C-alpha cells in the first residue's frame, strides 16, 4: 500500500487560499502535507503513488448540502451506502441528508444512526440535517440541541415548509443557541395544493395543475421578514424563481443573515422538460421559465446564490412509472451535479474558482464544516476533474438506485476522474 499520494501538474483551484495555478499536491497520512505552486515536488519515496493531472482541475472535495439518502425507511429508493457511493463517483466527499426519512430524523437517535451507518458502510462523509419540528408536522420544535450534539449540522423540514409563521419564528430564534442555519423549503402549501408543474401557459396546455411562482416567493419573503425580526440564520433551499432571487438579493444588501442555494436543474432546464408528461421532470419547486433560468444564473454570478446543491431525490422506477399527478416529485442528481455545474464555467457565468466556492467552500462555511479547502494539515478530501471528458447520462452510468433524471440521454462535458476521500483514491470509471 502506498503511504502517500502525489497529484502532479494539475490546475489547482482553491478559493480558501486564493490559489488558481498549476502545481503539485502531496498527501500523507490522509492529510494535505504540501501544496506547491509554481514548483515541482520531488519525492523519492517509492511508497508514494503519483497521479498525473496535466489538463485537469484539482479542487477541494465537493460538499452537497442538500440530498436525500432515504435511509432509514425507504431503502428501495436509496441507502446511505448506495447514495454515498454515487456521491463519490460524482466528485463529492461530503453530503448532507435531509430528515424526511422514516422514522423522520427529528431526534438524536436517528441522527446517530445515520452517522454510524455512514461510518460503517459509507463512501464519504455524511452530515445529517435534523428536522425543525417533531415529525416535520410544523407544530412543535424538535430537539435541535440534542441532534446537534449527535452531529446534525442544520435544521430543515425539507419536503414540507413550516407553514405556521410563529413556529418558524421560534425555530429561527432557538437555533441561535447553536449558531446553525434553519433551511427553508419555501412553499406556501395553500397556493400549491394539487399543483404538479409550474403554473403558466404550458400547465394549461398540458391540463396539469399549476404551482404558481408566488407559492415560493411569499414564503421567501416571509422567512426573510422573520430572519430580520429574529436575527436568526436563514438558508433558502432550491431557489427557482426570479422574484425569489431578487428578494434574497435585497435581504443580503440589508444585512440580514440569509444564504441561498439552487440546483443544476433550475439553471439548466425549463418547464418544457415536462412535455409528454415526463415524470422524471416532475420536481418541487417545479422547473420554471427561461426568464427564471436567466435570473438564477445572474444570482449565481453576483453571489446572491451562495451554493449549488443537487437536491438528490432518488425514487424507484415503479414510483415514477405512474400518471403525472401521482408520481413523486424529485430528480436523482448527485452524479450530475458537477458536470451540469461545469457548464457555468464554460459559458463564463462563473470562474472555476467561483464554482468551487458554490460547490465546496460556501457549504463548508455555512454549515461550519471542515473541508472546502486544500490547506496543509487538513483532511485530504479532494477531486480531480477532467473538464473535457464527455459524460453520457444513461441509467447504467448512474450508481445511484434512483435513475429518475430528466437528463437521460444527454452528453455532458467534464466529470470527476479521481475522488480522494480521507487520502484514499477512488478512480471514477
Amino acid at each position: 500500500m502506498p503511504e502517500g499520494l502525489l497529484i502532479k501538474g494539475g490546475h489547482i483551484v482553491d478559493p480558501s487560499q486564493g490559489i488558481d495555478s498549476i502545481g503539485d499536491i502531496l498527501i500523507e497520512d490522509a492529510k494535505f502535507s504540501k501544496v506547491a505552486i509554481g514548483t515541482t515536488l520531488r519525492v523519492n519515496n517509492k511508497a508514494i503513488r503519483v497521479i498525473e493531472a496535466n489538463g485537469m482541475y484539482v479542487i477541494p472535495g465537493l460538499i452537497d448540502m442538500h440530498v436525500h439518502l432515504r435511509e432509514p425507511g425507504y431503502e428501495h429508493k436509496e441507502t446511505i451506502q448506495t447514495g454515498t457511493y454515487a456521491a463519490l463517483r460524482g466528485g463529492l466527499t461530503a453530503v448532507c441528508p435531509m430528515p424526511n426519512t422514516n422514522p423522520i430524523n427529528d431526534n438524536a437517535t436517528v441522527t446517530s444512526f445515520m452517522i454510524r451507518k455512514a461510518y460503517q458502510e459509507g463512501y464519504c462523509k455524511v452530515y445529517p440535517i435534523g428536522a425543525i419540528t417533531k415529525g416535520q408536522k410544523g407544530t412543535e420544535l424538535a430537539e435541535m440541541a440534542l441532534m446537534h450534539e449527535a452531529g446534525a449540522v442544520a435544521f430543515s423540514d425539507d419536503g414540507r415548509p413550516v407553514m405556521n409563521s410563529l413556529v418558524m419564528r421560534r425555530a429561527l430564534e432557538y437555533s441561535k443557541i447553536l449558531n446553525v442555519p434553519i433551511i427553508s423549503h419555501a412553499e406556501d402549501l395553500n397556493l400549491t395544493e394539487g399543483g404538479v408543474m409550474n403554473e403558466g401557459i404550458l400547465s394549461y396546455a398540458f391540463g396539469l395543475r399549476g404551482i404558481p411562482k408566488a407559492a415560493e416567493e411569499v414564503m421567501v419573503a416571509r422567512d426573510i421578514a422573520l430572519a430580520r425580526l429574529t436575527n436568526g440564520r436563514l438558508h433558502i433551499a432550491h431557489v427557482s424563481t426570479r422574484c425569489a432571487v431578487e428578494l434574497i438579493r435585497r435581504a443580503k444588501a440589508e444585512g440580514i443573515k440569509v444564504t441561498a442555494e439552487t440546483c443544476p436543474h433550475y439553471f439548466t432546464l425549463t418547464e418544457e422538460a415536462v412535455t409528454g408528461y415526463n415524470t422524471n421532470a416532475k420536481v418541487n419547486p417545479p422547473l420554471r421559465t427561461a426568464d427564471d433560468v436567466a435570473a438564477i444564473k445572474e444570482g449565481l454570478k453576483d453571489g446572491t446564490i451562495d451554493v449549488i446543491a443537487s437536491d438528490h431525490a432518488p425514487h424507484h422506477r415503479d414510483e415514477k412509472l405512474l400518471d403525472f399527478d401521482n408520481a413523486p416529485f424529485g430528480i436523482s442528481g448527485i452524479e450530475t451535479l458537477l458536470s451540469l455545474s461545469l457548464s457555468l464555467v464554460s459559458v463564463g457565468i462563473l470562474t472555476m474558482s467561483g464554482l468551487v466556492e458554490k460547490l465546496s467552500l460556501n457549504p463548508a462555511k455555512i454549515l461550519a464544516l471542515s473541508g472546502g479547502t486544500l490547506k496543509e494539515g487538513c483532511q485530504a478530501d479532494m477531486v480531480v476533474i477532467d473538464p473535457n471528458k464527455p459524460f453520457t447520462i444513461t441509467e447504467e452510468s448512474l450508481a445511484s438506485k434512483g435513475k429518475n433524471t430528466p437528463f437521460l440521454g444527454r452528453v455532458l462535458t467534464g466529470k470527476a476522474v479521481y475522488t480522494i476521500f480521507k487520502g484514499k483514491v477512488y478512480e471514477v470509471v
Partner: protein
Amino acid sequence: MKKDLVSIKDLTADEIRHILVTASTFKDVLKRDIKKVPTLRGKTMVNLFFEPSTRTRTSFELAQKRLSADVLNFSVTTSSVVKGESLYDTLRTIQSYGADYIVIRHPCSGTPHLLSKIVRASVINAGDGINEHPTQALLDAFTIQEKLGEFKGLEVAIVGDILHSRVARSNTLCLRALGANVRYVGPPTLIPTYLPKGIRAFYNLQEGLRGVDVVMALRVQKERMDRGFFPSEREYFKLYGIAEERLQMAAPNAVVMHPGPMNRGIEISSEVADSERAVILEQVTNGIAVRMAVLYLVGGADA
C-alpha cells in the same frame, strides 16, 4: 390518422374535417331501421373507465355495437385496481387480453399518453383529468357545423369553469384549428391566469356574449364552490347563468350547447335549456355518430 387519439393536437385540420364528413355518413346509418354495420366485426374494444361515467361510456358502447365490435367494459369499481394493482400492471393486463382498441377515461391528466406508449392497441381518450376530452370536442364541432355551416370567423363563447374543464380545452384546440374564434367567459377564479395567445377572457357575461354564434355552457361542479372558487350557486347563476335575457346580445341565430349533465338553474336556465336555441340533445345523438367515425378512422382502418 395516427394509431391513437389522445389529444386534439394529434389531428390536423384536414383530419378533423375528415372525421366530421365520416360521422355524417354514420349518422345516416343511425337513422335506418337496422342501425348496425359490419365495419369492425371481430375487433375487440375495451372501455377502461377509472372514473364514473354514464353518458360517455354509453355513447362509446353504442358506437362500438353499431360497428359490430366485441365490447368489454372494465370499470374501476369492479376491477383489481381497488385491490392495489398498479396502473402500469392494469394497462399491460388489458393489452394481454388482445384488445385492438382501448377507450380510456382517467382522473389524471396524461394517462392516455402513458397508455399509448405501453400498448399496441389504438388508444382513444375519453377524458383525462382536467386535460382533454377529444371526442366531446369533435361531436361539438359536428353539431356546430350541422347548425351553422362554416367555422371560419365563427365566434364561440365558452362559459364557466374553464380552468378545470377538459371539454373547454379540447374544444378550444378543435374549434381554433377549424378557423373559429374562441373566447372564455367566467369568474377570474375559474379562468386560467396565463391564457393561450389569441384568446380573450370576459368576466362579464353580457359583454362576453356580444355577437357570439355559439354559447357553450360548462357544468358547474359543487366541489369548486366548496373550495372557494365562487361563493354560492345563486350568485353564480346571477352572474354567469345562461338565461334568455342575456342571450339578447348574441347573434340572432346563436345556438346554446352543454356537454351534460346539466344543472338547471345554475349554469343554464330551464327555459334556455328547453328552447329552440338549445342543441343539447342533438349533441348526444351526434356523439354516437362521431365516436363511430373516430373508431373507424383511428389507426388507419379506412386505408
